[in-house]
């Protein structure tokens, strides 16, 4: 039986078993590959998406449990129309290998939506579930602070 999912403003009918995690629905069924597989056990944050604006690890949400509208990195902004947080990522040249950055950006976007002026401690608390093996953390922190101040000016 097909399940209806609203992703990035568009409704998709998904014909997969109920227990398939949202991550694998997005990647292998819908073709939204910006959301990454890193660990499968909510230990790295690479698969972070938003459900009704809240950041979640999509590897831990079964298809049948998706409770609201899903936003992925592709829905946050595009190369031609980036969200402010993505612009900050570009300005600070954050990415190295880049594999974890979709998850980092989605987590940071959720943080800023909730807390427009995060302190370093707030950033530590919100971002420590997101692993980066390249060690881009200092630039991630700078980009979040920068995006926060630009969003507050706007």
């Amino acid at each position, binding site marked *: 039986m097909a399940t209806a999912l609203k992703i990035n403003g568009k409704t998709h009918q998904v014909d997969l078993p109920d227990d398939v995690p949202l991550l694998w629905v997005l990647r292998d*069924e819908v073709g939204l*590959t910006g959301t*990454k597989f890193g660990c499968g056990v909510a230990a790295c944050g690479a698969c972070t998406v938003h459900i009704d604006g809240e950041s979640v690890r999509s590897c831990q949400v079964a298809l049948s449990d998706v409770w609201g509208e899903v936003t992925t990195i592709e829905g946050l902004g595009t190369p031609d129309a980036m969200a402010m947080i*993505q612009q900050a990522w570009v300005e600070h040249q954050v990415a190295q290998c*880049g594999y974890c950055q979709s998850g980092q950006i989605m987590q940071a976007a959720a943080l800023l939506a909730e807390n427009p002026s995060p302190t370093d401690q707030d950033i530590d608390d919100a971002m420590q579930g997101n692993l980066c*093996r390249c060690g*881009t953390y200092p630039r991630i922190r700078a980009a979040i602070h920068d995006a926060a101040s630009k969003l507050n000016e706007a």
Partner: protein
Amino acid sequence: MASIGKILRRTFLIGSAAIVGGVAFGAYYVTRPAANPLKPGKGETALSPFVLIDQQGVTLFAPRAEMGQGVMTTWAALIAEELDVELDAIRILHGPAAAAYYNSALVGEGLPNKGYDISNFQHNLGEALGVLGKPLSLQVTGGSTSMKDGFERMRMAGATARETLKQAAADRLGVDRAQLKTENGTVIAPDGTRLPYADLAEAAGRIEPPEAELRDPSQWRLLGRSLPRVDILGKSTGTAEFGIDVRPEGLKFASVRMNPKLGGQMNGFDASTAETMPGVEKIVDLGTGVAVIASNTWLAIQAVEAIDVDWGDAPYPPDTAALFDRIAKAFDDAPNSTMRDDGDVDVMPEGATELIAEYAVPYLAHATMEPMNATALYSGNTLDLWCGNQAPTLIQLRVANTAGLETEAVEVHTTYLGGGFGRRGELDFSEIATKVAMAMPGTPIQTTWSREEDMRHDFYRPSAMARMRGAVKDGKAVLIDGKVASQSPTQQAVTRYTGLPGGGPDKVLVEGFFNQPYAVPNYRMSGYISDLAVPVGFWRSVGNSHNGFFHETFMDEMAHAAGRDPLEFRLELARPEFAPAAGCLDAVKEMSGWTGKTPDGVGRGVAMTYSFGTPVAQVIEVVDQDGTIRINKAWIACDVGLALDPGTVEAQMIGGMIYGLSAAVMGEITFADGEVEQYNFPDYDALRMHNVPVTEVRVLETNKYLGGVGEPGTPPSMPALGNALFDLTGTRARSLPLNTQFDLLV
């Protein structure tokens, strides 16, 4: 139109070739150009591999793997600098697997000199020996060699292309080439008319490339500046394509399980449950493992885990303690190498104080963020393979052999790498994906490792032990006699890649051990190889990753035994031996406000290592916060000779340090019952946002030769942290990881 024959007959440093509607340029070191990778059509001339200009515009090829180190951007900038194009106005491609892209610098690194003491003659010899890379088809991204390899060749490719385009314009306009200028992809005529390169490309293809001169660095527009990365938009918007993201038409998804007793046999399996699971299309017997092809990766993982497999035993001692016993036994044999033997370490200088210490470090996993994967399409007589990789030509040879095809029938498509760190120089993921795809000809199959499969089937940084004996007198080190024992990733890899036994003195085993720039009169450093079958490989900075810890921890112990400040102690020994190394120590001393004294609750440690041509000094500060120790600050100084992109150098220095600190704090792969005991990130974690230090980097440029940047930040981090913990607590860490010995913030 230049013909293939014409190109083959000549000894080119730079060659050009006509293509349909355009021209291509490439560089060659040796008298016979390698076969051309871009497959000219019948009746067309061969292409050269680095610059291609046609009606669509300018395309540059950066045949080194972009795994985060920024190589694609800097490699393209080398060409663009001379060609006068802007990076955002051109296309940059990884380039196909091709012998013409061999890495000349990687082979040059194999010379038995210390590196920093290299003479011009040896430097030139190294360059000349670089041609050895070609017969071996070493299109490898590793050893922090990309810029050494590309620095001359790529600028020359750009300059030659520029001058050829100018000649084409000069011929068209009837003026002298010297009257023309170039800017932003156009040739500018004396009257200011601009001729786009694309319009001149076809004519340029019919011209012998004129001699071109490289510009003086004072004229550089791009090199030496921090440029926007060419991959940054894709990587900030989820649109960059990694191996795991390729989606050829009709793609199916697979997952694999190999023997967790690494290298052991598979006695049999029962897939009856897996066969009935949702989405499952096929069970594949790989001989030494099993795979499941399904409609979805997660369904494939569930099914492959449901297969009941009878695994054979591991071909090595089954637990960590027994493995370390075997490594220690290597010290009883003759050394594999003694690459430094100055003075006489068997005579204790009169009045000197002797020190003896033994060190040990564990196996380490690479743990790239993107789990191992590859996608293959086998048609029966051709094979297409997509993956992020560090060695496309080696992969091409291997999978051609796997599939029983000619090398030319295999096309390797290199995507971005979700982390490499040495892991993606291996061939296993490509070979397994090929075997899986061969079970379903005509259908592209993406084979993805679960994180657990990835973590437990790595080619690990080997465990290593060191026995150090030293002596100090009058505040100075007067004797160092060091022995390191570990498995040899190099010898194992030679056997793995070629099937031939690896042998001879292994420089990689002792790099960072024998070649440290300290003036110590009696100095002998030996390497001992432990012959174990645990799969080991190249982990960011390789031998330096353990030897840096051994050498620089012992250096600290000697400084304390000599009653000296550890930074001043090093400075005194480094200054007469290699000024850039002393310069790095001076820099971190100044940056950190080093006084040799720290208040209660604060500890500072220093370390300096020389690796891949680059000396790097680091000072690390730890603070005790109510019993929990936090890595608070770090200062890094490196001397890369020439910082082609200072922003990239800074990012690599910080990233390399964090990679090393993660291993130092919590990295450990252990064995029980022949199997790796770590499964996923909760068992093998790394530093995160809350526990990385605030870091300051200074990039120096006094080094005579261009040094690497991707790896040299890693080796000094581990001893600098251990030395800081000693300063804080008085307890000396002689083994890693540190979280088993100290209450570190994790």
